[in-house]
């Protein structure tokens, strides 16, 4: 029967040949503990996984539809505000001279940062063979795609004449007009389109075996037709698996530099100018570290929400939050290191305009925001994430992650909207206060990501089944003397 399933995943009995089963009771206890702790040691038969994961995809409760309606309305409101803004002009926002960029661009940078994390978790951890990543990659990749798509809207929303956006694309035209590649915005546009394309392809590629599973096991009607197309005729033959492995490795290695470059270019949008507080040689790596920080924290939030609402307690365990917590700690320290670099040099230089901006942050009008940023991005993670107890507590991790995201959003906001208010000529100083249109569009952007996730989890498995199965097959418990040791088989 399983021969015709076609997903290439046999319904093996995990109890067969497990050394722990024949061991004395002390060792069995050890084995039980290890299984309770580590997903990859806790092998379950395929129908179990399917029931746990694919079951909820076919049902939708009233809460789901309520959330669907609320988020959908928020997105529609934001879309309406955008149309209203195009009709009347950018003047409906709080922008002014000299603060020509503010919340829209801060959103753009923030959401792109969120979008970096998926690749980090999926590709970097894959290349470095962190086995525990198996169940969290799909959520991270999906978040990447949705956050990138949302962030890509913001340069358009922010344009004075949105309907002329295509003038920035290098398309052949009668008047032989070409966009200017002197402008960092064009590098940015190129980088985002490249990264968006490659991350969609990457997310799709590693989803193919699972699409086949959905196609063969649960999908009916239009879902079956959709999965039939998306699974690209996957049957689970040896050759297909070997191709998938090669393609995944190539893609993982190739997408990492794209990700780093893309976010560096976002930093260069600012660093290439002569605006004080922006012109900085450290902005490339500084922006990348901040992006990874906010993105990793966002992935933790998504995982916690998915675990609770989709009942994925079997797949997402404390060990995963522990692993993500370690990354969050390292990234928080990395961000702090780059930020220190970025602040130390202008502070030491004491140029009047740099001094003004530093004063504005540390003791001026922006001091509350700045202090909250430093607390959320550095003090809170660095003070708490050392402890395994904090890292394995899911509520604590969610709280820390929310703070990190608030901190990173504030960081983007301070760089864009607050820094621009200060320049070389004090007569032209200004301040920016967000108005209702920006706020509604920002809320709409967050809602859009939530809405897309809502749709996604009902169509596609949010946990990569085949990666979990693969990890479980590779991982086992082995007896050494009286001890049980987790071991891994890795043929290459």
């Amino acid at each position, binding site marked *: 029967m399983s021969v015709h399933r076609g997903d290439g995943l046999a319904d093996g009995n995990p109890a067969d040949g497990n050394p722990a089963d024949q061991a004395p009771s002390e060792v069995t206890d050890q084995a039980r503990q290890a299984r309770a702790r580590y997903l990859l040691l806790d092998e379950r038969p395929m129908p179990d996984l399917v029931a746990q994961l694919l079951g909820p995809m076919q049902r939708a409760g009233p809460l789901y539809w309520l959330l669907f309606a609320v988020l959908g309305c928020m997105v529609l409101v934001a879309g309406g505000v955008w149309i209203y803004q195009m009709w*009347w*002009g*950018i*003047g409906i926002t*709080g*922008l*002014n*001279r*000299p*603060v*020509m*960029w503010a919340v829209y661009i801060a959103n753009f940078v923030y959401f792109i940062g969120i979008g970096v994390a998926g690749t980090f978790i999926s590709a970097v951890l894959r290349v470095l063979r962190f086995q525990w990543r198996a169940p969290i990659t799909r959520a991270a990749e999906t978040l990447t795609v949705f956050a990138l798509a949302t962030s890509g809207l913001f*340069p358009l929303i*922010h*344009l*004075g*004449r949105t309907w*002329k*956006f295509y*003038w*920035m694309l290098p398309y052949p035209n009668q008047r032989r*007009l070409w*966009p*200017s590649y*002197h*402008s*960092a*915005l*064009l590098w940015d*546009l190129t980088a985002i389109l490249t990264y968006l394309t490659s991350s969609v392809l990457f997310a799709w590629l590693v989803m193919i075996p699972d699409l086949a599973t959905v196609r063969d096991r649960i999908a009916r009607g239009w879902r079956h037709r959709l999965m039939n197309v998306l699974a690209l005729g996957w049957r689970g033959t040896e050759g297909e698996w070997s191709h998938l492995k090669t393609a995944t490795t190539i893609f993982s290695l190739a997408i990492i530099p794209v990700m780093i470059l893309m976010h560096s270019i976002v930093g260069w949008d600012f660093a*290439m*100018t*002569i*605006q004080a507080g922006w012109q900085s040689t450290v902005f490339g790596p500084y922006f990348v570290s901040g992006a990874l920080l906010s993105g990793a924290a966002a992935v933790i939030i998504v995982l916690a929400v998915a675990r609770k609402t989709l009942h994925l307690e079997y797949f997402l365990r404390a060990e995963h939050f522990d692993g993500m917590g370690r990354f969050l700690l390292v990234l928080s320290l990395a961000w702090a290191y780059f930020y220190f670099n970025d602040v130390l040099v202008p502070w030491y230089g004491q140029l009047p305009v740099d001094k003004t901006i530093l004063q504005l942050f540390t003791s001026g009008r922006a001091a509350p925001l700045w202090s909250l940023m430093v607390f959320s991005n550095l003090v809170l993670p660095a003070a708490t994430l050392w402890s395994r107890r904090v890292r394995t507590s899911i509520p604590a991790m969610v709280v820390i992650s929310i703070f990190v995201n608030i901190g990173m959003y504030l960081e983007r906001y301070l760089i864009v909207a607050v820094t*621009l208010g200060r*320049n*070389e*000529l*004090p*007569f*032209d100083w*200004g301040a920016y206060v967000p108005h209702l249109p920006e706020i509604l569009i920002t809320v709409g952007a967050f809602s859009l990501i939530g809405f897309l996730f809502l749709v996604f989890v009902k169509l596609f498995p949010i946990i990569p089944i085949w990666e979990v199965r693969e990890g479980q097959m590779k991982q086992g418990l082995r007896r050494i003397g009286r001890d049980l040791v987790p071991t891994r088989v890795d043929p290459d």
Partner: protein
Amino acid sequence: MIARTERKWTMVVDLDKCTGCEACVVACHAENNVPIVSQEQVVRGRAMHWIHIERYWEGEYPNVRARFIPLLCQQCQRAPCEPVCPVYATLHSEQENLNLQIYNRCVGTRYCQNNDPYKVRFFNFFDPVFDEPLNEQLNPDVTVRSAGVMEKCTFCVQRIRRAEERALVEGRALQDGEVVPACVETCPPSALVFGDLLDASSAVAQLLQNNQRAFRLLGHLGTEPSIYYLKGGTSRVGA
């Protein structure tokens, strides 16, 4: 196509002569169809004056002194606003050393304003409204800009073109003093002087020759502006 002579259009602003009367601001509005922004919008920091007088106070009350500096597009030879435009809406005329602005090419990224250290670029936050009877006096030589477009001082490029055409028709070279931007024409104390710096006999060239008072605003940024200021009295503005 007119073969253009290489020029370096330059303005000299004598801060000793400037009284801060703002006649230049009014003249510029009339000549270039610069929108009149409502009071409410001005409070929100959206005033539009291609040339404006920046006023700085020196000293503490009662020993205070006002200092004026007329600020307009500095027509930089190495303009920071130019390379950042993704659609070439602002670009350099190498031959005339002018910083051109093409309104109908602008998509409104506002990147140029961010990278403009002098903050002399103005964004049309809304479509311009010209109240009666101002709508009757719009200059037909200058585009009325729509919402979402960046604009700035052009050195009255329409006047430069008119003068060039007249000289061409009359078959002679352009003479010094023939091109007069609106602000220069109207300045009561003649604090503003305009001309071609490459023409050694021009008024600007004469004024700037070995002039100890001449300086360019924010010179340390290396933007090489085409506006030269002459220090006024004990003024330390910009120096």
